[in-house]
């Protein structure tokens, strides 16, 4: 059984699909269909492409209910569910805050908004003002300053949709990931074990990767969020502070410090939302259908601030590096 590997760029990152199947021709065709699905989601959910469905919603939904596709409605319903489940710490209306922090684009240089600015910012955030009418399939913004940004969840959603395509094609063993931060393991890896993913310490940048933990995915998804990735360092104070691309929707403050969160569940969409929420909040309780933890690096190493790493999440020799 030979692995078929397909890599491509989407959502400003690198996606990869690895399939194990007795028929590599069939596996390649299935991987290509999954790729097309991911690209379709990308074009639908792009915040920047003027002609995307999301951009049209952002332009028009504060003026009138905007009819959307069935796929977009399912995604927004998921957003609503996860917004509630995470006690509002996952909020896809965070775009204005990210822009104010200068964290919208990879090349942007960040700045720390004043306390007053942050108070104003918080007023512009809130998925509660996004009204969904499933029967009419419309989206309406009850406040004119709302903007949807699905960047925190689109990778997971795209991977979930791609997994469905693979399952429909009869693929039972595969690993899919987007940017190495969101992954799905289907079935068993080439050695017959569950796909094992390594969570790398982002603060050790030289030499061999340093694994914080290794997680076996038993037909599950995984998402990791961290401050490193898209971040800036504020040198204006007495101490240097690193701010990451996740902003607390309740305070308007960007996440700072050496922090990392991990979420594992059946759905990559759920994982994406929960890893974001866990990175943001210091007091979330994780529901039973999700395995999740938030970690902070101190002089003593990585310690859990929320939940605890699953005892099975241990570094093992057969860990699969995704880089």
């Amino acid at each position: 059984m030979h692995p078929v590997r397909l890599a491509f760029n989407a959502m400003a990152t690198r996606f990869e699909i690895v399939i194990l199947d007795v028929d590599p021709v069939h596996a390649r065709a299935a991987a290509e269909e999954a790729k097309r699905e991911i690209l379709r989601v990308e074009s639908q959910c792009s915040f920047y492409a003027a002609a995307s469905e999301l951009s049209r919603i952002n332009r028009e939904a504060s003026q009138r209910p905007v009819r959307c596709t069935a796929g977009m409605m399912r995604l927004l319903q998921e957003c609503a569910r996860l917004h509630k489940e995470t006690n509002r710490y996952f909020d896809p209306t965070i775009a204005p805050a990210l822009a104010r922090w200068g964290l919208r684009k990879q090349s942007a240089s960040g700045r720390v908004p004043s306390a007053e600015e942050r108070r104003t910012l918080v007023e512009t955030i809130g998925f509660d003002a996004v009204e969904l009418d499933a029967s009419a399939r419309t989206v309406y913004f009850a406040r004119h300053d709302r903007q949807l940004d699905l960047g925190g969840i689109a990778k997971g959603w795209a991977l979930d949709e791609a997994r469905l395509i693979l399952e429909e094609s009869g693929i039972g063993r595969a690993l899919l990931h987007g940017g190495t931060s969101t992954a799905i393991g289907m079935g068993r890896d080439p050695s017959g074990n569950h796909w094992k993913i390594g969570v790398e310490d982002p603060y050790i940048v030289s030499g061999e990767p340093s694994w914080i933990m290794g997680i076996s995915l038993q037909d599950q998804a995984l998402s990791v969020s961290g401050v490193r990735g898209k971040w800036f360092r504020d040198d204006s104070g007495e101490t240097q502070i690193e701010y990451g691309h996740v902003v607390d929707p309740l305070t308007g403050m960007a996440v700072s410090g050496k922090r990392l969160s991990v979420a594992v569940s059946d759905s990559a969409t759920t994982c994406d939302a929960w890893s974001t929420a866990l990175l943001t909040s210091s007091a979330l309780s994780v529901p039973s259908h999700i395995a999740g933890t938030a970690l902070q690096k101190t002089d003593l190493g990585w310690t859990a601030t929320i939940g605890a790493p699953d005892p099975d999440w241990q570094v093992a020799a057969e860990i699969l590096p995704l880089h």
Partner: protein
Amino acid sequence: MAPKRFSRRNFLKAGSLGTLAGVLAAGERLPAEAAAARAPFTDDPFPCAVIGFGEWGREIAAAIEDIEELHLTTICDNFPLMLRRAQRAHPQAARVADYREVLDDPAIVAVFIATATHEHKDLVLDALQAGKHVYCEAPLANNIEDARTIAQAGLAAQDQIFQAGMLYRTEPQYRSVYGFVRSGAIGRPAMTRSQWHQKTSWRRSSSSAERARSLNWRLDKDLSLGLIGEIGIQQIDYSSWIIGARPKAVTGFGGIMFWDDGRTVKDTIQAMIEYPGGENAMYDASLVSGFDASYDLLFGNDATIILRDEKAWMFKEVDAPMLGWEVYARKDKFYKETGIALLANATKLDALGQDPTEDDPNAKPPIWHALKAFADNLTYGPFPAIADARLGFESTVVAIKANEAVQEGKRVEISDDLYEL
């Protein structure tokens, strides 16, 4: 083509039911099929169906949902998996496996046929017979006899719209460039060059081996017109439109360079299309290299135009006359050349307060424009479609002969009698 009778447009012009009553009283009878196909004289969207929910059928269905004059009521596919996907994407639409259920539904006004090329003929003939307006994907068929039968039926259906899926004929940027070339902006058109590159196996997957064989008709030379016929038909049609003539011969080459997986169509092809005026169109397509994707180049003695991603730029020769407006136009650098951006609808965008040089927020894919033209025809017509049966037939003839040239690696002449209907 004779004027079409009792069109919705004419009815609206007449402006009263009394007029229709008068016409009927005068003894002119509505054919039963035409009555079924006719618009219901309301502002309600036209109920329609998509037959074939593969990749292209899904694009068509998505475009229909984005056109207010159309209402997607039914999706037909004989593959249960496709109907499950239809349920996810279009939960409001009924799903049927037998196309006759679509044709027997009197509420459905129009059908969009997006099945495998070799399956078009029976579907088109039955749909027209059932009184439906028909949009048929290009190529119309995989052999000239079937294509001719389809086109003849389309032309004979006087009260029904028949539109072939020649996408660039209705795409605003391509239409704009056509007008531009016709106005003499590039001087004398000398040649064209087009390419379509995508790294993909072109293969579809299925959990059932038998179904996979059926889904992969594109890879079977007995069913498929290959890359030049199934994909290149659009770009070659545009070249013919620009040059203003039908091809008289095609020389083709190709091979299976990479995807040696049992397929019998080439994965990399080149072709030279000859026109009566001495112009040639060069075309190549590959599933092996995705480099530089897809574009069309139109060369003239004063300028060359490139079209890609529904955008266009013009590169002028140093000795070309100045065009009054070009000093105001946006210019983009391409390596050592400077291209003048050609923008369709620039005046309209400006009037709407949108910067014409930014990405158009209302940009739609070519299939949307093709279906919008069909919907407008339903609303205000029927009048002869821009991409009518004759155009669809002639383009299909070129596609068939070009594929023959590529498969056999030789020069194939296309005599005028082949274009006859």
